[in-house]
């Protein structure tokens, strides 16, 4: 199989380039894309990519695989290979540090901006803040996000305004805390989102939904935030 790999080392390369590497896949085994990257790295240690848990939990190895953002560790080669070719590029829209490693600072800044933690001014109870099973259920489909950035870097609105539009990952988390019955900062959170960019720059393209490796639906969460903003201002 031919692997076309995005290479860029700012210390030695003026511009990025695609490097073709021939990889011999073992018979009768369907490898994950991450395994292929490891095989390449065995021959060329200079190839740089992030990885950690290798089972779709840590969110480190988000990359663009044959044109679609995915996690390399949970993407079987058989599912993505086209004409015996695999094209691996870094997540689009973020500055490249080296090869497949991108600088995710702006992604994390947007995450930080939505205050991704429980805010509750009431005195702490002796054991824990309780929640009814129904209220807990409202967090399903929201808390599972692993911040791999596959969604935000697939979103054209985030490409054009990454400094102003929170992006699907950040907004999914924003709604996770807006929907939490134990959180008391709902009004303050909504105040911080009610401008023409933070939430409303979402044009419902839904790339985020089609690429999310965890099967989450940021567009739906954004719709819920929009409804909450509309309900308090109309």
């Amino acid at each position, binding site marked *: 199989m031919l692997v076309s790999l995005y290479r860029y080392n700012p210390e030695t390369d003026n511009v990025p380039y695609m490097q073709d590497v021939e990889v011999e896949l073992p018979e009768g085994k369907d490898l994950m894309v991450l395994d292929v990257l490891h095989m390449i790295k065995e021959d060329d240690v200079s190839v740089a990519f992030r990885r950690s848990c290798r089972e779709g939990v840590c969110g480190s190895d988000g990359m663009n695989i044959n044109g679609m953002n995915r996690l390399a560790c949970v993407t079987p080669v058989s599912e993505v290979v086209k004409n015996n070719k695999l094209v691996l590029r870094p997540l689009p829209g973020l500055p490249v540090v080296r090869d497949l490693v991108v600088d995710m600072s702006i992604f994390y800044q947007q995450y930080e901006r939505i205050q991704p933690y429980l805010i509750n001014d009431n005195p702490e109870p002796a054991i824990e803040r309780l929640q009814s099973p129904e209220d807990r259920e409202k967090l399903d489909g929201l808390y599972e996000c692993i911040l791999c950035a596959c969604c935000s870097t697939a979103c054209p609105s985030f490409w054009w305004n990454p400094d102003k539009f929170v992006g699907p990952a950040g907004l999914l988390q924003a709604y996770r805390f807006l929907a939490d019955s134990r959180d008391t900062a709902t009004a303050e959170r909504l105040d911080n989102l009610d401008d023409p*960019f933070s939430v409303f720059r979402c044009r419902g393209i839904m790339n985020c939904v089609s690429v999310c490796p965890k099967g989450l639906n940021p567009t739906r969460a954004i719709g819920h935030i929009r409804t909450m903003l509309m309900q308090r201002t109309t």
Partner: protein
Amino acid sequence: MVKSVTNLGRTGAYDWLMQRVSAVVLALYTLFLTGFVLGSSDLDYAQWAGLFDQMWMRIFSLLALISLGIHSWVGLWTVTTDYIKPTALRFVIQAGCGLIMFIYLVWGVEILWGL
């Protein structure tokens, strides 16, 4: 909270709502006019002038004209803030859009009440 002074209202919710409300008005106006044209056999100037002679039609037309201005402002503002990054150039293009919309509005009023 991202600060912006060039969008239609002061909040994202306001712009979002106005874009949708104006879209509904424009859809109704388009449907009505299409229906009127298709529904009247051998449409002549007298019928057309008669339609626009009525006050409710003038109000409806003015509403559609204002909705067009609102709708295109929100839309073009979004497009220009997406694609035109130099602030001065973006401001000039946005101001140009605003001026054209204002001219069309005044011109439209002139046409509607001048028939």
